[in-house]
């Protein structure tokens, strides 16, 4: 029985490693500036995880293969209560590897989250609501019009409560898809009208909750033109699975042209671009 168990453990280990590393299912092709560093850290981590996992399982299999009971009465196990030296050795080694990995695992995070968006970033206000995304663009003047929850009126399509009397709101646009420039830092100002949602574009390697009552500022740089699926990643109610949108990454000149358009044309143009742009291959 010990040998059967050993073989099963080894087989399961092998299959687990294969399903991870055959890359048939893997992180989607990356489209952000921080992704290569993140992917390197992921690869390093998963290699360490793979080695530790395999070593432990191979060791476990080896023990049950080798140390079966012979059934003879005088054949006894090794009488030992352990070894302090071994305890110290493996504690120190795992501590160095694990904590070292943990410290390295902060680098991408720190580069993205510990400082504000660089000057000249392209800024978008994101207002999530139950099962819909709203993206607010400031228009030519680069100033977002004032918004106020008491002005929100879903039935009048004023989803984010824009104050029409504010002059800087005149050239603003709101769409249900996110349109951003390529190779330029993008700052999102994330808010929610009702419950927690989460902004999630898989190839971007980026996720952030949108929390009602807070405005959370995050930034990233997308470096590949295309159309990508955008999902809500935090359970927000009945139709959570349908809270879908797209992120369009466009060349800078198209963005400039788009921002010069009045709201209605802006929306039509975005709709047109969405229809005409094929979805970037996910894998």
């Amino acid at each position, binding site marked *: 029985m010990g040998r059967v168990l050993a073989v099963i453990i080894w087989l399961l280990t092998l299959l687990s490693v294969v399903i991870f590393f055959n890359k048939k299912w893997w992180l989607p092709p990356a489209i952000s500036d921080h992704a290569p560093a*993140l992917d390197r850290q992921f690869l390093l981590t998963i290699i360490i995880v793979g080695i530790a996992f395999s070593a432990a399982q191979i060791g476990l299999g080896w023990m049950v293969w080798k140390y079966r009971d012979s059934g003879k009465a005088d054949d006894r196990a090794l009488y*030992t209560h352990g070894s302090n030296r071994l305890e110290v050795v493996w*504690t120190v080694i795992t501590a160095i590897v694990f904590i070292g*990995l943990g410290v390295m695992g902060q680098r991408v995070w720190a580069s993205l989250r510990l400082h504000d968006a660089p000057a000249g970033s392209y800024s978008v206000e994101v207002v999530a*609501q139950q099962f819909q995304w709203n993206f607010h663009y400031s228009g030519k003047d680069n100033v977002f019009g004032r918004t106020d929850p008491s002005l929100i009126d879903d039935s009048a399509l004023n989803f984010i409560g824009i104050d029409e009397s504010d002059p800087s709101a005149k050239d603003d646009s709101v769409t249900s898809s996110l349109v951003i420039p390529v190779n330029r830092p993008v700052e999102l100002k994330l808010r929610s009208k009702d419950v927690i949602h989460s902004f999630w574009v898989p190839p971007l390697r980026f*996720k952030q909750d949108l929390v*009602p009552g807070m405005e959370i500022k995050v930034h990233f740089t997308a470096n590949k033109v295309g159309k990508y*699926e955008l999902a809500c990643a935090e*359970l927000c109610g009945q139709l959570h*699975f349908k809270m879908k949108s797209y992120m369009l990454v466009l060349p800078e000149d198209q963005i400039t042209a788009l921002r010069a358009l009045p709201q209605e044309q802006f929306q039509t143009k975005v709709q047109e671009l969405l229809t005409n742009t094929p979805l970037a291959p996910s894998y």
Partner: protein
Amino acid sequence: MSVETHEVHRHPAPTGFIRKYIFSLDHKVIGIQYIMLALAAVIVGMLMSLLMRINLSWPGTKISILGTLFPGGAPGGVMNPEFYLSLVTMHGTIMVFFVLTTAPQGGFGNYFLPIQIGAEDMAFPVLNMLSFWVTFVGFIVILSAIFLSGSESTVGPIGGWTGYAPLSALGAIAGPGQGMGMNLWIISIAIFCVGSLLGALNFITTLLNMRTRGMSLMRMPLTCWAWFTTAVLALLSFPVLLGGGILLLLDRLAGTSFFIPGGLYVSGVLSGSNPNFPLHTGGSPILWQHLFWFFGHPEVYIAILPGMGATSHILATFARKPVFGYRAMVFAIFAIGLLGFFVWGHHMFISGMSPYSAIAFSVLTLSIGVPSAVKTFNWLGTLWGGRIRFATPMLFALGFVSLFVAGGITGLILGQSSLDLPMHDTYIVPAHFHLVMGVASIFGMFAATYFWFPKMFGRFMNERLGQIHFWVTFVGVYSIFVPMHVMGLVGMPRRFSSFAEYEYLRALDPLVTFVTIAAITTITVQLLFYFNVFWSMFKGKKAGDNPWEATTLEWSTTTPPPHDNFAGVLPTVYRGPYEFAVPGAPNDYLMQTESGAEEPSGNGHNGHKH
């Protein structure tokens, strides 16, 4: 063998049916009650996961009985999205609270902790009884939450087992699943907290005050260390959840704003503009997450520490060898328990909390892998040089080690704040925690069941059925949860009732179906376990007092143990808990109650070969 004894008064067992089996004060009966509760709860939880898998793989499947039971959630027998989400919520809540927190601690801990330390009962038998019955009421309340459909067109609360505010705080205005079902969900958890607190108090007091003569702390079986640490975790973490739950309930029912900020606009209504949605202002949704996870992370260890204890205990017994590094194992249990209180923020990297605190939580989280690895090394060390007997309890204990490694190791990925950016709330998260806190813990409990069943009921469980149960379950859980990890890499989000909307998830369709088939197989084979338990109670092969040739005190008393555990004569302990293969001893095991010259000199740290 000479056994020193000291006389105590015998306590006769109660004779009336109700005092004996229902409102019993006997920790053994209460332990069995907890195990039965868990056995009932796990069926419900498992059936829910089955329904969820069917919906994910074959959406639109018609199941007539569902339509009858839940006309709101499955009209015509076809599940709707809100029904799926309440299954997610109920499955998680029932499994975490009423299975993983009851059987390992309230069940086996209750039954065996007093016996293993040589006590006649728990310190506070009445509290013990109350603790079970309070928990039982909690279970009834959570079950009733499922059936509260009707006007709400849903079957229960929607919020996941974490119940994030403000979705869970707003009330019916936030959509299906936020009405009375959610109130009952919160009330059930609050009741459960009270029951667990009573239990924890009892465990700690009993262990510290009621150890028999000679049972020093460092002679306790590792199971006792695990149950003790678990009780301390429960004592410190459940009150926080209880407090949070009360605040959440007040937000829902009394119009307070602990977790609800101002200016919300929900389902077309502005807060304060309509009697259906009173004015809220000043609350913090993230506060709920802090309170929840301050409890929720220690809860993970509450679920798995008893399994670790049972595994150490069983590995030594069936490898016929002392536990390798007993002292290191005790320190590792403490380290896990202690660090478990400083890592809750790793659930919240992207919640909007300070990115600096994310860094602290992240590094602390990775460091909790160290004592976990130490435990694994010592389990392998225990097997090394052993003479392993492959009975079913041992198979499950070995399975525990394998699954604990497989599930735990991916914590190295998820614990890193950077890697959480793509991984958060994808399938790699449920894959990780199901393997480690779900399946590994349950393997620990399977091992415990097969191991202690002869002591509890005087009969063995059927070995052949047990082995089939092991092989299928072991391969089955790997087949279910390993593919879920790669689904997470691709970016499949959790808590989606359908993946049809997203093009990038198409590549995963074959895996989704594979997982479902593996789940159906694994769930089906659990019927063997149920059959085995109830059949063996009456028809199993009779067992003697010490059928596994084990060393600890539960095996020194009769099978099943008398009402007062040791028939009025408390045992005296002369040695450590796992004295197997002692050179010169007549048998390959020395029970803790055996005195004599074979006791090894020195502190037992430097083993010697023979």
